[in-house]
């Protein structure tokens, strides 16, 4: 106990530790967005004609849309012409040599993500993405032996165009929303995962996203396909340098889960949240959705959201197959001037579908933290079952915690339960800890970690430790 408290304390004294900038020569295209930029990105990535056409369609559709205003967020106006939509940290020459800039290697080492396989401590394959380009994917060969495809999206488009074409945009259509259209037009890199029939992925797959270049946006695109009877656990982590300007991150994650397959998707989101005055930080506008197409399929989302100035994110499950299951476990922490509007959508379409939503919000400082969720049971989704629990914890009198659940029920055999509570850490709990010689700050760390435990337990081990540390860092200085 004492040891772990020391860890908390040590970490609590640190500010955002991933805020450094790496000095890497980066090929950045000019700021602004128009058709020729979309064509340029496509050309740089040497994409087939159909993909360019898809991008252009999305771009043209995006032009007709307006920025959505419904979220409980105060989003400053974003100048989409002041962003550069493509930044490539791999210089051309080195690309040919297939060698990575040592500075780049150092960056990822500093982030705790060793890109050399011999250095990897854990049984985890990593795809490292910096700005718009995937830098390296580890353990590719080992995975290939089992028929698992784990590579960057750009590579997948070159090597497995048929697979990509078959699945891309089938879960999140470019017409889905404003940011989905934008992403579909300019998406750069991300991961592509294909788990063949009957294969249980032997290691955790992980993608690490890093924004480095200034005035750029990151538009990653991830596609995971789990074929019949397969299993995969996928992790995602993200960081960005400290800058006074806001940076945009608009991603799409699509997951397809076939019959009897299971996908576990975990995120520790730690984008730069801005300073204590609310200056800078990443705008995180993400569309994540999984389609449980097959019968008996299962998709589980776990997220720990500690970063970003603004988070706008609703990982969702479409429970199409009979007996399919969706899960959503979330801890969202906001401090200082951070704003988060996050939650999930559970769309029950098949029979005997089940979903669980556990959401824990923690707000401190002057932040605003909202849960927004939808549970829809369609007419044919007999015996659908949902349980939702949304708890909010308030640390400080200037923050806000909000809950906006939607329940649309069109079936008489559905059983839907929703519960939400909001409270602060009670004096009694703190007093109890104080009595036993635990300082107030430590006690809060302890109580918060206990409060979030239900969700943290769902994370793979290494991530759980990182997430626990993160919780303490994010709440640093919020006691009082």
């Amino acid at each position, binding site marked *: 106990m004492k040891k772990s408290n020391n860890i908390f304390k040590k970490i609590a004294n640190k500010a955002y530790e991933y805020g450094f900038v790496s000095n890497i020569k980066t090929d950045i295209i000019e700021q602004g967005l128009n058709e020729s930029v979309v064509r340029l990105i496509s050309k740089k990535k040497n994409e087939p004609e159909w993909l360019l056409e898809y991008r252009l369609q999305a771009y043209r559709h995006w032009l007709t849309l307006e920025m959505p205003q419904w979220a409980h967020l105060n989003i400053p106006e974003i100048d989409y012409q002041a962003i550069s939509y493509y930044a490539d940290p791999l210089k051309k020459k080195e690309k040919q040599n297939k060698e990575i800039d040592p500075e780049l290697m150092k960056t990822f080492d500093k982030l705790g993500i060793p890109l050399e396989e011999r250095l990897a401590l854990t049984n985890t394959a990593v795809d490292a993405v910096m700005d718009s380009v995937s830098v390296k994917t580890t353990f590719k060969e080992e995975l290939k032996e089992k028929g698992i495809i784990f590579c960057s999206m750009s590579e997948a488009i070159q090597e497995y165009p048929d697979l990509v074409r078959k699945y891309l945009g089938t879960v999140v259509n470019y017409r889905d929303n404003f940011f989905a259209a934008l992403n579909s037009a300019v998406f750069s890199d991300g991961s592509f995962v294909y788990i063949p029939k009957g294969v249980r992925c032997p290691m955790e797959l992980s993608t690490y996203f890093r924004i480095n270049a200034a005035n750029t946006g990151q538009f990653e695109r991830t596609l995971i396909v789990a074929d019949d009877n397969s299993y995969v656990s996928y992790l995602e982590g993200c960081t960005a340098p400290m800058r006074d300007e806001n940076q945009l991150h608009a991603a799409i994650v699509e997951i397809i889960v076939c019959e009897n397959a299971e996908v576990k998707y975990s995120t520790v989101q730690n984008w730069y949240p801005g300073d204590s005055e609310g200056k800078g930080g990443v705008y995180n506008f993400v569309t994540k959705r999984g389609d449980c197409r097959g019968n008996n399929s299962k998709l589980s989302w776990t997220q720990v959201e500690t970063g970003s100035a603004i988070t706008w994110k609703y990982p969702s499950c479409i429970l199409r197959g009979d007996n399919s299951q969706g899960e959503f476990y979330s801890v969202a922490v906001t401090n200082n001037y951070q704003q988060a509007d996050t939650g999930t959508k559970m769309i029950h379409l098949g029979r005997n579908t089940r979903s669980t939503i556990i959401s824990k919000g923690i707000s401190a400082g002057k932040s605003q933290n909202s849960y927004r969720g939808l549970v829809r049971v369609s007419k044919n989704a007999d015996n659908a079952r949902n349980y939702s629990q949304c708890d909010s914890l308030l640390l400080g009198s200037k923050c806000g915690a*909000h809950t906006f659940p939607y329940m649309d029920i069109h*079936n*008489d055999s559905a*059983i839907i339960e*929703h519960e939400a509570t909001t409270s602060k850490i009670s004096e009694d709990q703190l007093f109890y800890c104080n009595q036993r010689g635990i300082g107030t700050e430590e006690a809060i760390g302890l109580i918060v970690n206990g409060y979030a435990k239900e969700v943290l337990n769902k994370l793979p081990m290494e991530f759980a430790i990182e997430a626990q540390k993160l919780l303490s860092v994010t709440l640093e200085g919020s006691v009082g």
Partner: protein
Amino acid sequence: MSNEKEYIEIFEQHRNIIEENCAPLLNEKRTAAFEKFKASGFPTRNDEAYRRSDVGKQFQTNYGMNLRRIDMKSNANDLFMCDVPNLKARPEYILNDSYIPTQQATADHTSGVFIGSLNEYARSNSDAIAPYYNALAQKGDSIVQFNTAFVQDGACIVIPKGVEITETIQLVTLLHSNIDILNNRRLLIVLHENAKANILLCDHASNEHTTMSTQVTEIYLGKGASLNLYELEDTDKNNSRLAHLFVQQESDSQFNHSNITLTNGFTRNAINVTLIGSGAHANLTGLAICDKEQHTANNTVIEHVASNCTSNELYKYILDEKSTGVFNGKIHIHPDAQHTASQQTNRNLCLTDCARMYAQPQLEIYADDIKCSHGSTVGQLDENALFYMQQRGIPKNEARNLLMFAFAGEVIENIDIDALRDRLHILIEKRFRGELNKCKGCSLCKK
């Protein structure tokens, strides 16, 4: 925009007719309200608050409006069929949107109590209600503005400081006309310091024609005032009701509200309670029993502005056939509202796979030292309980009714007036059994 256009033209062309019969207080609020309505038009399904209640569609019927205040020549006693026995009440009647003067004296000049026509009171005692009329409603949505622009009459209840009215004030709204009619009613209820009252509002229809009502109610509760307000809607499928209730509570006041929807066509009740004085308590309950294509929506907003206030909400829906239930409940806790305790519960029974329930409980919290929770469930009658009762010789239908009756009972128990509670028990039981006179073979009970 075509529907709005029609009403905008009507207002512009007939403004003098509307104003001719009305008190200056009512008339002086019209211009601002009309401009707001003109700018925004009727709400559409793109408006979050109306997402599940398509109000624009309700205005598509070509309604008539009684702008010239023509006396409908109906005897209230003939039309009124739903008496509450043993209720010590003084019934007052509103026909469509006109207050019907009764023989008994309603204005008690010595105590200062007034129960009667809003238009009359606004003429004779304009100063007494000028600070209240439209003070809360001016911030309302476009339906409220529409009402303010067109309204000509309604009821007004003023209870002065310290006066306690023991007998229940029963205000019966009768909907009856020879044409499809649009009514704009207005109610103003002011309870001054430490005043107490029980008010029962009943909506009844005896109509073959389509009726549409907008009703705006403003309630002001002074320090320590206490009001029990019961609303019962028992109309028919041709009836649409868009009701807006605004309540403002000062310190230590008590507001207890029950909204029972038994039979209706399209109903949307918007309830907005603002607690501006510390120690105030609001208790909102609601019950909707729907079948056929009934649509019942309750949109509640409780604004906790002051500290140390409490609020409690309980809404229940029983949905059969192709009916739709909408519950949208928001608790908004302002930054200074420390030590608030607020609870919201919404429970729904869906009986067929065509019935639809949209529930949206919301919390918006800006203060930290509070306790706040909401819970919402959608489900069916418990199969085990049904089986248990059948095992003991209770027929399935009867067991079903018993369970539904128990489900509804929790809301009815909240009613403080014994006579009314007993009456509602009977009405609800009859509703389930299909014996209600207007029920005409309601399907809830045929199974």
